[in-house]
C-alpha cells in the first residue's frame, strides 16, 4: 500500500512539474507580441454585448468599442486576432455564442482572400490563449500548416522548448496573473506614420473567393440566422493589402443574395474624415487611435440608426462598468 502511495506521489509530482514547465515556457504576450493575449481577455468580460466584431487586425486596430459606448451607448466587443482566417472567425463566433447572443455580428471581409493557412506564428497568436473547446480543436485542425502538429498546441513545451534559454522576468511575473492589453478587444496605438508609398498592385492568378472560404462564410451566416443575429459585413478602411474591385464585387453579390448589409468603409474614408497623413500608425495598414476614433464614431452612428440597439448609458450597472473602462482608456490615451 505504501509502495503504491509512493508511486502515486511521484506521478502527481511529475504531472505538476510538467504543467508548471508548460506554463513557464508559454509566451505571456504581455509586453511582446501582445496581440497573442487578445483572445483570452474576452473570457473575463461581463457578457452583455449587443455587437460583436470578428475578423483580423483590421477590426482590433480600427474599431474602439469604448468610443461607440461613449457616443451612442452601444455595448460591443472586438473578437479580432492577427490574420484571423475565415474558419477561425467561424470558430470564435461559435465559441462566443456559448457565452452570449448579440444582436449584431460585424464581420470584416478582408480574410476572404485567404483559402489556406498562412503562418504558423499567426496561428499561435490566435489559438494559444483560447480556452480549450471543440471549436478550438476544429480551428487548430483547420489552421495547421504541414510542418505543425496538434501537440504544439496541447503541450506548449513542444513548440516553445527553445524559450528555456531566453526566459525573461515577464515569464515569471505573469506565470499566474496577467493584465489586459486591449479595451474591449481594441488595441490602442497612438503612433503616426503617414501613407507614403505602397507596393505595386500585382496581377493575381485568380480573384475568385474559393469554395472553402465561401462555405465558412455560409456557416457564419447560418449560425447568425439560427440565433436571430443580424450579420453585417464590412471592409475596414485599410489601404493595404489591396482590396481588389473583383473582391468587392463578390461581397456585394453575396450580400445581395442573402439580404445582408455590406459597408465598404474604405470607399467612405473621406466621408469618415480619415486623414491618411495622420490617422494611421504604419503607413495605411492600420488606423491609429485618432483614425480608429473617427471610424468608430462613424460606424457607431450606422449601428445605432439601423439595428435597434439599446442606449446602455441609461443603465446604471452597465454605465458603471463602461465609465470605469473609459477612465482607464482616457488616461492611457493622454486625455487625463
Amino acid at each position: 500500500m505504501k509502495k503504491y502511495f509512493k508511486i502515486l506521489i511521484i506521478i502527481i509530482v511529475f504531472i505538476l512539474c510538467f504543467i508548471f514547465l508548460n506554463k513557464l515556457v508559454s509566451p505571456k504576450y504581455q509586453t511582446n507580441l501582445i496581440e497573442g493575449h487578445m483572445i483570452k481577455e474576452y473570457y473575463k468580460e461581463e457578457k452583455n454585448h449587443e455587437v460583436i466584431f470578428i475578423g483580423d487586425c483590421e477590426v482590433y486596430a480600427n474599431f474602439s468599442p469604448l468610443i461607440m459606448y461613449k457616443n451612442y451607448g452601444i455595448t460591443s466587443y472586438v473578437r479580432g486576432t492577427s490574420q484571423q482566417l475565415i474558419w477561425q472567425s467561424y470558430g470564435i463566433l461559435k465559441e462566443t455564442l456559448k457565452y452570449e447572443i448579440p444582436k449584431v455580428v460585424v464581420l470584416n471581409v478582408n480574410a476572404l482572400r485567404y483559402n489556406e493557412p498562412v503562418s504558423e506564428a499567426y496561428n499561435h497568436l490566435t489559438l494559444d490563449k483560447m480556452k480549450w473547446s471543440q471549436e478550438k480543436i476544429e480551428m487548430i485542425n483547420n489552421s495547421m500548416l504541414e510542418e505543425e502538429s496538434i501537440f504544439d498546441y496541447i503541450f506548449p513545451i513542444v513548440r516553445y522548448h527553445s524559450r528555456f534559454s531566453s526566459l525573461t522576468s515577464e515569464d515569471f511575473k505573469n506565470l499566474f496573473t496577467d493584465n489586459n492589453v486591449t479595451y474591449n478587444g481594441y488595441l490602442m496605438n497612438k503612433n503616426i506614420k503617414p501613407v507614403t508609398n505602397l507596393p505595386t498592385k500585382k496581377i493575381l492568378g485568380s480573384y475568385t473567393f474559393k469554395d472553402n472560404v465561401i462555405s465558412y462564410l455560409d456557416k457564419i451566416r447560418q449560425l447568425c440566422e439560427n440565433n436571430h443575429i443580424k450579420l453585417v459585413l464590412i471592409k475596414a478602411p485599410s489601404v493595404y493589402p489591396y482590396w481588389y474591385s473583383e473582391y468587392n464585387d463578390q461581397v456585394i453579390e453575396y450580400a445581395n443574395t442573402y439580404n445582408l448589409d455590406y459597408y465598404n468603409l474604405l470607399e467612405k474614408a473621406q466621408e469618415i474624415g480619415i486623414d491618411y497623413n495622420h490617422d494611421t500608425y504604419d503607413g495605411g495598414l492600420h488606423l491609429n487611435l485618432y483614425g480608429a476614433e473617427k471610424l468608430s464614431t462613424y460606424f457607431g452612428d450606422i449601428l445605432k440608426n439601423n439595428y435597434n440597439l439599446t442606449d446602455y448609458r441609461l443603465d446604471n450597472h452597465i454605465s458603471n462598468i463602461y465609465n470605469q473602462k473609459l477612465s482607464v482608456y482616457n488616461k492611457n490615451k493622454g486625455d487625463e
Partner: protein
Amino acid sequence: MKKLIILLLIGILITGCSEVKKEENKVYSFTYNDKNFILGEEFSTSKYGKEVRYAEVPSCAGQGVDKTYTYDHYEITTTPDGDKDKIYTIYLTDDSVKTTEGIKIGDSLENLTKTYGNDYEKRDNAYTYTLDNTHLEFIVVGDTISSIEYYIDIE
C-alpha cells in the same frame, strides 16, 4: 589505350560541366544589367542600386517588416531574416525585361511552355515552375502572359 584515357577524361569533363550547370540552376534568379538577383540572398541597395520608390509593409503583429524596392522595370520585396533583409520576391513590371531564360510579359503561353516545359503547377491563371524552394510564376490571361514573379518559400 591512349584514346580510351582521352575519352574517359572528356567524359569526366562533360559530366563535371553538366553537374556545375545543374548546381547553378538549383534556384531561380533574375538578371538585369549585369545585376544578378538571387532569391533568398541578402539585399542591399549598395549592391543592387538605388530604387525609384521604396515602401515598407509591416506585419500586423510584430512579425517583421517587408520592404519593397521599385526599379524602372521590376520590384524587389525583401523579408527579414534575423538582422538581414533577404530577397523574397522579384516582380517584373513591364515587357522591357525578360526572365533569365528569355520570357517577357506579352509572350504567348506556347512560347512559355516551349521555354520552360510542361512541368508546372497550374492554379487558375497561374503557371508555377519550381526549383528547390524557389518558384517562377506566370499569370496567363487568354493566351498571353500578363505577369511574371519570382518568389521563395519562407520559413
